[in-house]
């Protein structure tokens, strides 16, 4: 399918001598916000690292924008925000983004654009180390949005944020998807699942479900997605 931005197939990953992903498969089409949900330690970060091409994989394949993950041809077309902000604490917001923009070969206007998008214009010249955790997280997000990447991979971008800001960010994610990007957004909070177009539920390195929130509610007979997750775990244990 040409439309597919990410195609993960039979992915196994070993970390610290232990297999932590046991044969993961799923696709992400263009224009979709895919939620990667699962408890802490279920392998979300590992899976996202495999998608952006910085994780050593044991077997299986990860294709991104029609090339193997991490391939030279896709670097720069994939935006990645790690769980803890990966920016330089001793540089200002603008200096950080200007550097990443230079690396990507973008014009200077790109920096102001993403600063605006994440609502940091008022803090653009402050040193990142002096910002609050939430603001730092948005600098991290801004760096992932530079240059309008076709695939945007965000590792727990809304953790620890106040509800108003969380709301704003989810609106932004859908805006980006409407512009044609594919987004993969991880979270360990089931509450956030309802905001995604589609969910991949991960537990102990295995995909528990791959469905829209509506399908998940219908399939498990509950409106509460937290409950739905628990029922799936129970079903899996019985099977």
């Amino acid at each position, binding site marked *: 399918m040409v439309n597919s931005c990410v195609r993960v197939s039979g992915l196994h990953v070993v970390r610290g001598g232990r297999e932590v992903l046991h044969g993961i498969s799923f696709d992400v089409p263009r224009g979709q916000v895919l939620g990667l949900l699962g408890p802490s330690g279920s392998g979300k970060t590992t899976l996202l690292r495999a998608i952006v*091409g*910085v994780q050593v994989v044991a077997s299986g394949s990860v294709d991104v924008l029609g090339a193997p993950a991490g391939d030279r041809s896709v670097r*720069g077309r994939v935006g990645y925000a*790690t769980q803890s902000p*990966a*920016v330089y604490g001793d540089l200002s917001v603008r*200096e950080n983004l200007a550097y990443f923009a230079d*690396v990507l*070969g973008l014009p200077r206007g790109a920096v102001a654009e993403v600063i605006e998008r994440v609502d940091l214009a008022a803090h653009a010249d402050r040193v990142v180390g002096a910002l609050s955790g939430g603001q730092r997280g948005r600098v991290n997000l801004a760096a992932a949005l530079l240059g309008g990447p076709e695939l945007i991979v965000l590792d727990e971008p809304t953790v620890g944020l106040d509800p108003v800001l969380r709301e704003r960010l989810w609106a932004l994610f859908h805006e980006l998807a409407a512009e044609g990007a594919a987004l993969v957004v991880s979270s360990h909070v089931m509450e956030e699942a309802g905001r995604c177009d589609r969910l991949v539920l991960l537990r102990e390195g295995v995909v528990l479900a791959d469905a829209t929130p509506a399908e998940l509610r219908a399939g498990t007979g509950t409106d509460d997605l937290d409950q739905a997750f628990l029922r799936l775990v129970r079903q899996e244990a019985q099977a």
Partner: protein
Amino acid sequence: MNPRVTLATTRRILQQLRRDPRTIALLLVLPTALTAVLRYVFDDDQAVFTRVGPLMLGIFPLATMFVVTSVATLRERTGGTLERLMTTPLAKLDLLLGYALAFSVAAVAQIAVLLPVSLLLLGLEVEGPLWALVLVAVLVAVLGVALGLLGSAFARTEFQAVQMFPALILPQVLLCGLFAPRDSMGPVLGLLSDLMPLSYAVDALRALAVEPGFGSGQAVDTAVIAGVALAALLVGAATLPRRTG
């Protein structure tokens, strides 16, 4: 590799350096202060300072640049920015050359403090041309950067990165000819000494201290230092993994 990305990296590292007074002090003040201490340790035997003083122009840049580079790249790794950069079109050599260029600028500043203070205030005497002293000192600094980058490419943890200093730098200081002339060493130590790049810096600086010109011997020494620095950068770029476990 892309010069635009290399230079952007250099600029970014210099911006960071400017905000870091402790590292600036380590690079600019410490070598000069220690050289002054050395001068007064041998206060009643000026001949000793005349002999070892010039060598400090090689040893301090190597040691300080190694430490500063190791720490900077380690922060790049633990802060996650290295991982971010690995998902971009940045070539690994862009990053390493960016560091080498930035710290070369810092090395010129370091020598610009150390050399005048040594010559004018501490009574250091050198016969050779000043440009040659600066050249050797800056190349040794770049060598320190290159070894620091190489060391941290191999290190997987902070602890391993710290272990690189005694492993890579101290043997060079012991065997470079600072404590005993290189030609008086036995065959095994002599061979080890010949394998260590700092030895060539010390040979060159010692010659520049007592001979008025920049001879072919010093040219060879200089080329060896530059060659090892370049090789260390290339090996560092080759060994730095894009993917980790």
